[in-house]
Structure formats: structure tokens, C-alpha cells
């Protein structure tokens, strides 16, 4: 297949070990439909800033080719992330099809905010889907991310039919979504709508602050905090009680 598309990306990250199996390359798509108040990758919210660069499909493939030897030995591959990869379906599709034909293990990390029918063919080629549930309460979701969670939750229900392993990721943020009620509701939803239900808890961090500085924009509220280790343990128990497995790629 001849590759001709270009798109906007943050620097691809080789040697990632936390976003799927084995040694992986993470392709960060720029652009995101959500505007999370705690966002750790604020550069992903626009196409036009110093941390975003235009890459051709060929350039991306070249980066991936140099890493293939490490996928082979480790069972790793490529993870599409962002921003929101599905916001640029054409180039995502092109990359997915080429890499699928090369039998490279593929994963996607998505906000779940997309038109399911439009990208169903892409999702079908994934080996693993990470999808976020940031909040179960619609109003709070709108407050924190700028968008309703209805599409997200409905897409997760539809994903079940794809028969692809799904891991629901929750960014665990004191000051946003960490209460028992929300967590229990999330766990229940996951249990009901996903076969082999799995949740990964991602504790909030402020490593993105430097990027805010680099971009010259205001940093997230100080009210957002990482949960304590004890609180994480409690949440783990709470979620497991609902019959959902807690997984970790650390």
C-alpha cells in the first residue's frame, strides 16, 4: 500500500512498557474532543504548538520499523494514543491497516468519544482497547471534560460485540472522581457491559505541568491531587468486590 497521508503528532515514544504488552511504541495523535481540566498532555489539545509536529505515514512507519525487533522478542507492538487517535480516522486507518498486515500487535488508548460506526473497522484490527471512564455522572463529566459521557458509555457497550479484550482506565483524581459512589458505579457499569471486565487505575500526576509552562498556558487547578496509596488500595478492593479485575501494566 502506498502511504501518502500526513497528520499531526506529538513525538512518538519508543520503549514504552506501560501501555499494553511487551515493549511498545506509542503514537500520540494531536487533537482531542475533550478538554479535561487535569490533562497531562495539554499539547494534544491543538495542532498548532511547539510540541506537535507533522509526520507522514511513512515517517511514522520508519520509526516503528526500527523497533520491530523489540516487539518480536517481547510480544510488544504499537499503541495509538493521544490526544484522541480516532479524531483523525483517515491516517489512523491507514496506519492500522498497514501494521495489521505486518502482523504487529496493536492497541489503542481512547477517550471513547467517537462515532462508533465510522471507526469500527479500525477497532476490529486492535489486539487490545484501552478506554477511559472519567466520570459516571453526566453533569460532572461535562464540567470536568467539556463533553457529555453518553457517547462514551454507549460506545463501550457497543465494543463488547467486537470480541476484543478491553481495559477500562480510570484516571484517579482527588478532587474529581475519587468518591466511593462514582467508583462503585463505574465498576458496576464495567461489570455489566464488558466480558472479562478489567479496570486499570491510573493515579493522577502533575508531570504535565512542565508542558503547560512550555506552552505558556495556565496549569491545572491545585485542587487536583494524586490519591494516597491507602486510598488506591481501598478503591482496588471496592472495584474487585463488584467482580471486576484490577490490572496494571507497571
Amino acid at each position: 500500500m502506498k502511504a501518502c497521508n500526513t497528520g499531526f503528532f506529538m513525538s512518538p515514544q519508543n520503549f514504552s512498557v506501560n501501555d499494553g504488552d511487551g515493549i511498545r511504541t506509542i503514537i500520540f495523535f494531536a487533537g482531542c474532543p475533550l478538554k479535561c481540566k487535569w490533562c497531562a498532555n495539554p499539547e494534544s489539545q491543538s495542532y498548532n504548538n511547539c510540541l506537535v509536529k507533522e509526520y507522514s505515514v511513512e515517517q511514522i512507519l520508519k520509526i516503528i520499523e526500527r523497533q520491530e525487533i523489540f516487539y518480536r522478542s517481547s510480544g510488544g507492538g504499537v499503541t495509538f494514543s493521544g490526544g484522541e487517535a480516532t479524531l483523525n480516522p483517515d491516517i489512523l486507518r491507514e496506519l492500522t491497516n498497514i501494521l495489521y498486515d505486518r502482523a504487529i500487535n496493536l492497541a489503542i488508548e481512547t477517550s471513547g468519544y467517537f462515532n462508533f460506526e465510522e471507526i469500527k473497522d479500525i477497532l476490529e484490527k486492535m489486539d487490545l482497547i484501552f478506554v477511559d471512564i472519567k466520570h459516571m455522572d453526566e453533569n460532572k463529566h461535562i464540567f470536568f471534560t467539556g463533553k457529555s459521557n453518553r457517547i462514551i458509555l454507549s460506545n463501550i457497550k457497543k465494543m463488547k460485540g467486537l470480541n476484543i479484550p478491553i481495559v477500562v482506565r480510570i484516571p484517579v483524581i482527588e478532587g474529581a472522581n475519587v468518591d466511593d459512589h462514582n467508583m462503585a458505579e463505574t465498576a458496576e457499569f464495567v461489570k455489566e457491559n464488558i466480558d472479562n471486565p478489567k479496570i486499570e487505575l491510573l493515579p493522577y500526576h502533575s508531570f504535565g505541568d512542565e508542558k503547560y509552562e512550555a506552552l505558556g498556558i495556565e496549569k491545572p487547578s491545585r485542587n487536583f491531587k494524586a490519591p494516597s496509596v491507602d486510598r488506591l488500595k481501598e478503591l482496588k478492593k471496592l472495584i474487585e468486590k463488584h467482580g471486576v479485575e484490577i490490572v496494571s501494566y507497571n
Partner: protein
Amino acid sequence: MVTDRIEKIRQNYINSKPAISYERARIWTESHKKTEGEAIPIRRAKAFKDTCEQLKVQIFDGELIVGATGEFRKCGILTPEFSWTWVDREMDNFDKRVQDPYIMTDEQRKFVRENIFPYWKGKSLEEMFLAQLPEETARVAVDTGIVDNDSKWRQAVGEITPDYQDVLFKKGFGGIIREAQEHMRNLNDITAENIKKKEFYESVILTSEGIIILAHRYSEKAREMAQNEQDEIRKNELLKIAEICSRIPENPPVTFYEAMQLVWFTQVGGILSENPLALNVGRFDQFMYPYYKNDIEKGIMTKDEAQELIEALWLKLSEWVWTISANTAEFFAGYNQFQNLTVGGKTRDGKDATNELSYMALKATEKVKTHQPGLSVRIHQDCPGDFLDAVTNLVSKGTGFPAIHSDQAGYQMLINAGYKPEDARDWNNCGCVVPHFRKTGEWTSAVNINFTAALEYALNRGYSRITKGKIGLDEKDPKSFESYEEVEEAFYKQFDNLIRHSVISTLHAQRLHKELVPRPFLSSCIENCLSEGVDLVDAGAKYNLGPVLTGIGLAVTSNSLAVIKKLIFEEKAVSIETLIEAMDANWEGYEGLRQIALKVPKYGNDDDYVDDIAIKMANYYYNEGHKYKDINGNNFNTAFMGISNYLPTGKVVGATPCGRRAGEPLSEGVSPFAGSDTSTPLAALRSAAKLNQDVHSGGTLLNLRLNEELVKTKRGQRNLGNIIQAFFSLGAFHVQFNTISTETLRKAQENPENYKDLLVRVAGYSTQFVNLSRSMQDAIIARTAHESM
């Protein structure tokens, strides 16, 4: 946890400073006074036997494996027949020197100056070497850091692996004596060659008798101590030691314990005979396994007892100290004796060779944290996952061990050197990263060559920027270079010249070794020497390889050429005049230019622009080195080894175009320049694997620092194992990791008292961080720590 006994010995190992014993030198000298005029092999063998008869026998508290090289527990010996002048010059400073200090008292110094050194005046290998070396070569090769082979004229060669499988465990030294006598009886023809052979066999008989006598003296000593011992348990242990030493090493071992004691007596013999570098243990898990299996099956020994004996051997290997000059210590820092011990890999018939002892060896290093043995593993592509996990688990402990080697690349290196396939499959490591085999005689670290100096001379009309002296060949004004190709040609001209002097210097040293220091004891441990009646110095082993030239500064030199190519001739961003002025000024006043130079692609980031320059240089080096033949008619070999040679070689090179400042370290082996591999460790691995590593039969070395977070979990360790396998599948030979956090290293610098057992990887080996000089410590901290992302 280790047993109390092992912990006690371990504490002694950590807390005591090495002390110099002149006993071996005293006996050796007195013996030589009595044998004036006799054949040299006989004189050396008699001196060895006298040493075995007279050296004080010492069994230290709690020891299970016995045999000491002098009166101190942590002990270095003197070998004035190789060199005494440096000891005379440096010993007043031994306890004060920065790298590898030793304790030596005024009385000791007085004694050696009055009773030992005068005898050797004019007779030592060093003096003869310096008297014979052509002036032109001496200027480049004597204590310069440019071409450095002083470990081959101030020291013995070492670099040998006793053959336990086919010689020592099969015959014992008693059997070796009988075999030598048998051969002598059959040497009927009167030829010059046979006279020499007879002398060889006589010398072997003498040294074998010597080591048996030494063991018998230990047996008596243990029995004597048992009589006075109140503690019943210790009493029985001493009686056991007495029994073992009465049989071993005269007879083949029957039990695991006996075999272990035989290994140590062989080391002691080797040490007393020549104070060797790299007297390797070899494939420990292979030759020990039959004894282990038998003892476990028959209930002679428990697994815990075996583990304790292994740890006891590790401590013995660590307690003796290689006595070396300050110059050598800069190149081989950290009291390292380079006794390599290899586990894992394949059997001679190509099957997986890992067994319980392979795992127990890793465990022992994890538990006792000794810098010896130099623990190496061979990893093949079908290596059991459990073994690879055990390897990366040890990596995660931050000891810098084990040195991880590709089974396939090691095999290929020996095949390229002309080995038979089953022998090549049976390879073990020598020293740090040299693929080697127990039926081989070679100089695996013959000479260090400073690649970056060649570039300096090319760009400075043959002159050194540091000493201002002319060391290189004539060259035109660097400002008149008109193309990159011209610069490159000038570099290779200087490069060839350094290789030429390396070869000249090595050939002189080889000739003197043949004449002055035959090696009957170690030759008796090598199968072919025995069967053919030829000493190791006369190429008596089955395989005799040419000396190994070690290249230093591959990354710095390639990075520098890349800067010249890109900035001066391609982009014309800066004139060659300006760059030369910046070098002359050590970048002072040229910080802007330096920043631009730092941004030019650097080796270690999987960037073909600069990696191609490194590949070309490495291939060129192989061809140039292989042009020359050694004293036995074998090709010289090439290597990119480490040791700590990238520090002293850096001190003698001024600022380099890559952005490096004058005096800063160069780069080691095929490793990137410290801190310049800014991408990922995977990129550094890919850069290193691009070099055709398997042609450099002297070995290649890659050191990387990994953030400890990355290998904290089982999953992280397995990922590292997979990375290693990927690296090896690309054809690379060796990688070793330091996984200690920078924070820990800084703390250790501040409070060395609390970090005495902190092992770090220096280059081809690991050693105690606190035993390194401050500049060496800083260099280790400066290595890029690859962060997990």
C-alpha cells in the same frame, strides 16, 4: 540469607584494606640466587616449588576452602621478576594513591629495598623491555595513554582458563607428574627440541610437586588446628579440610567439596606463579555439575551446603588482590583480578547447558555481593525463561552483574578465529568480555589503542594538545583540509601509525616473555602443553590466538568526525579554522559553537548518519589489525573492550569536535559517549549492534545504565530479558547494566562508610563503588541513566 560463617568472611572482605605481602617475592628471590645459570623454566619452577614449601600456611576463621597467597587475608603479592622499579617508585605512596591503595609498612619497604629489589636490578622483564623498545615506539607506547601495553611488561599475562574437564579433574597434579614422566621417557631422539621439551616436563613436575606439597602443608595445619579447637563443629570441619587437602589436588576429586578446593588451589598456584590478570575459572556450572549431582543424589551434601561452598569460593576469589602500578590501576580500576566465571549457554553438542549450578552461581553473587568472580552468562535464543528471569533479577539488584553475553556471537567469534565447532560451542569468558576457550593460549588484552588521539594528531599536525609533544606523524595545517574525505584520510593515516606501534610494542613484549617468563604451572593446566611438551609462552596450547588490540574512543571519534563532516563540509555552518581554534581554546569562548556541535547526531541514538562512521571505523580497524602477525605467526585480533581505560586515555586528549572538553573520559568499548545516548536504551542497543561485532574476536563491550524503576517488577525484568534477546538477535555480543539510581550513587559518594558493599559496573566488570577514585565515580554517574517512559 547467607550463613553466619559466610557473613563473617564477607564482613572481613568488605572492611579490610588490601595489604602487600613480600613473602612470595622473598622466597622467589632467594630461590633464584641458588639457581643462577640453570635453564630458565627450571629456575622458575624451582622458585615456585620453594614458595609452596616455605610460604606460611594460613587458615582463617571459619574458612571452608583454604589456601592463602600471603600472610594477610586480603593480600597482594609482588613479582619482581616482571617489574620491581614501579614498586620501588610507587610503594611509598601505596596507601595514599587514589585508585586501588594498598597497605605496606615501613619495615616491609625497607626489607624489599634491601633484600629483594637489588637482585632483580637489570634482570626484570620491564627493564629489558624498556632497554630494547625502539625510541620511536617508546615515545608513543610507554605510559602515554595513547598506546598502552604496560600490563604486558610490568605484569604477567594471565588470561588463561585452566582445563578442569580434561586435565585437572581427570588427572590431578599427581597424574600430571606421571604423565610428564611418561613423556620424558619417550623423548629418545637427541634434538634441541627434545631437550627443551625435557626441560618443560621437568619444570611441570617441579610445579606439580610444589602445589601438592602446599596442599599437604594445609592438611597438616588443619589437623594441628583441629587438635586445639574447642568447638566441636569447627573441629570436625578442620578435620574434613585436613582430609581433603591430603588428597587434593594430587588426586582427581571425588566430591563437590574436593572439586571446589581443587579449583581454589589451582587459582593459588596460578597467583603464586605469576600474579596473573584474568586467571579464569571458566564454565563452572558445567565442570562442577557431575560432582554436585552425585553428592546430592547420594546424600553426601545438601543443596544449602553446596550454596555455602560456592559463596566461600566467591569470597576466596575476592580476597586476593592483583598488585598493579598506578598506571595499570587507572586502566583496570577497582582491585579487579578479572577471574571470569561463566554459566549458562550451550553444551559441546549444542544443547541447553543451564543446570542448578547456573542458578546457584547467580544467587551467590546476589548474596555475597563480591566483585569476584567476574560472573558472566551466556544467553542463547532458546535459553530457558527461568534462567533469563534469574539473570535480569540479578541485574535489578544493581550489582552490575552478570555480564550478559550472546551465546551465538561468542561462538561465531571463535569460529572466525578458526576453532572447531564443538570447541567454539564450549567457550567461556576471559577477563571481562573476551570469548575464550580452555585449550587456548593468547594475550586477550595485549594493548589499548587511543582512537581519539589519532584524530587529534590528524587535526594538529601530529602534535598532542595536552603535552604539546609530537607523538603522531607529520600532517599538514588542519586549516588547509578541503574535504571531509581528506580529514578522514589524515585520521586513518595516524590511526595506522598507532596500530603499527602497538604491534611493535607487543612483539617486543612477546619475545621477552618467551625468553624470561615461561609458565610451567599454568601450562600444566592446559591439555596440549602437556601432551606436546611445549610451554604456553611457546604456543603450546591447542589454539594459539594472536594478541588482542583494544580500541578505545570509538564513539567520541565517530561523533567528532560527524561534526566535521556535517558542520564544516556539508552545511558549511562553521569554518575549519574556527573549529580548530575552539579545540585549541578547549571550547572556552566558543560555547555557542559547542552547543551546535552537541546537536549533531551522536553515536548511540540509532542515527545512521553517525553510526555509519562508527561502522566504517570498526571495519577498518579489523582489517588493519589483522594485517599483522604475532611472534607465533598468528594474526593480531581486534576488540572493543572496556576495562576502565576510557578515563586515562581521555586525560591525554584535548578538546574534541564532538563537544567533549579536554581531559574528559573517552568512550568505552562500543558504548556511547557518556550522556550522549539521549534517545532510549533500545536506540543505544541498535547503534551498538550495527557494528559487525562478531569479527572482533577479542570481544566487544556495551555498558548501559538503567533506571532501577524499570526492572523493579517481574514484568519489567522479563521485558529487559526480551530486550536482551532482541539485541543478541541483531548479532551483538555483550551488554551489562548498572541499575542503581543516581541518587544512591551520590549518597554513596557522600557517605562511603554506609555503602561499602555497593557494587557497580565499571566496564567489563563490577567493583565496589567506594573503591573507585572520585573521578571514576563521577564518570559512572555521568553515564546516561535511561529512564522508563
